[in-house]
């Protein structure tokens, strides 16, 4: 659609456009509805090259959808981050980012946080097996490999997002925390909760007990209380709606 005189003047004076040829290319783009929309797109992007790349994404349905995404991401300052985020869609469909962008709702800082989390979690892998700390047996507790694996759902590297769906919140260890450190922290907590030895704390099914910046919980089991819960109480925390949005983008 041909822009009206006012729009054309604004477009020709737009500092992001190099020349008339670039303007023409954008106006002719099948996904750009009109001059007014192009002006808004330019307002919310940092470069024409990026705008063309994002319009050309096969699963980006329209310029209107791209504009909505850019606005919800917080505008031009976050356009590069948005482009990177859209590449994380596990299905390859950029519309899988819709929930996360709806949550960001134009708050640039929140979008940066969500994009940072998504980038970290996109690189996650299956959790490795690792050894329980010696304090588990020394204090008379028990543990199973499945419990140790579950503790890794609070790491950025090994979190199984699908397991966290519907949970009230997920607090994470700092990025890069290896399983061995988590085992060490568990051992320290068991020592701290039971300074005289034994396994009096935590009492099974009593809500668990904090120790420093971690929380330990137990259930009854053959051979001694089984450590069923272990997670940090301090750290970056993902609330359920954001977790759901991340699952929609990254897969479970």
């Amino acid at each position, binding site marked *: 659609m041909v822009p009206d005189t006012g729009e054309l003047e604004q477009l020709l004076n737009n500092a992001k456009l190099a020349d008339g040829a670039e303007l023409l290319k954008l106006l002719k783009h099948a996904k750009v509805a009109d001059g007014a929309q192009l002006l808004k797109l330019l307002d919310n992007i940092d470069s024409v090259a990026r705008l063309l790349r994002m319009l050309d994404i096969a699963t980006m349905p329209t310029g209107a959808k791209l504009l909505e995404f850019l606005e919800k991401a917080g505008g031009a300052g976050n356009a590069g981050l948005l482009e990177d985020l859209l590449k994380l869609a596990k299905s390859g469909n950029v519309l899988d980012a819709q929930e996360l962008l709806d949550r960001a709702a134009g708050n640039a800082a929140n979008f940066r946080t969500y994009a940072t989390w998504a980038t970290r979690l996109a690189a996650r892998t299956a959790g490795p097996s690792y050894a329980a700390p010696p304090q588990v047996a020394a204090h008379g507790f028990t543990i199973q490999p499945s419990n140790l694996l579950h503790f890794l759902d609070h790491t950025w590297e090994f979190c199984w997002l699908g397991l966290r769906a519907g949970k009230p919140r997920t607090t994470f260890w700092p990025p890069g925390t290896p399983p061995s450190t988590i085992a060490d922290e568990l051992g320290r907590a068991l020592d701290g909760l039971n300074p005289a030895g034994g396994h009096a704390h935590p009492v099974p*099914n009593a809500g668990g007990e904090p120790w420093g910046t971690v929380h330990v919980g137990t259930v009854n089991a053959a051979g001694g209380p089984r450590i069923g819960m272990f997670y940090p109480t301090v750290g970056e925390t993902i609330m359920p709606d954001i977790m759901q949005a991340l699952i929609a983008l990254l897969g479970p």
Partner: protein
Amino acid sequence: MIDVHFAIDFFDGTLNQRWDEAALESHLDELVTLDDPIEGAVAIGQAVVIDALTSAVLRLCFQCIDALLVPLGAYHYSYEAENVSALLETSDDGATIAVSGSGLPSQTLPSRELLPALYACGVRYIELLERLEARGRPSYDLPQLHEAAAAARDLLARRGWL
């Protein structure tokens, strides 16, 4: 009538599913494979407490009753699985119980209905664990649950609410 029921989380290999009590009958084969701690939720009216389930049932269905049978009683519930809490408080005349907590809608419910409903929910959970045990899934928490249920039953019976 207050809706108090439990639900169980089951990870199907991809996503966490939450099955309400009513749906459990058709999932017994899957439930037998559940590892400890069982996770799930106790729903108290509109408040859904998502936590390690045995721990939630033990405390919310049985152990809280002693504290909530008296006027101005309070039961602080610390979640097992998350660093958050809930609170149940009786009114000054003991007729109602206010339920509140992190992420929970605040609501006030009649004590005379709520406490027996909590107890009944806990009993149904015990019955489920016993059925799963009969199918080969050991439940080492059953003695603790039975003991707490007996104490709660005595308290409610003495009040004439059972």
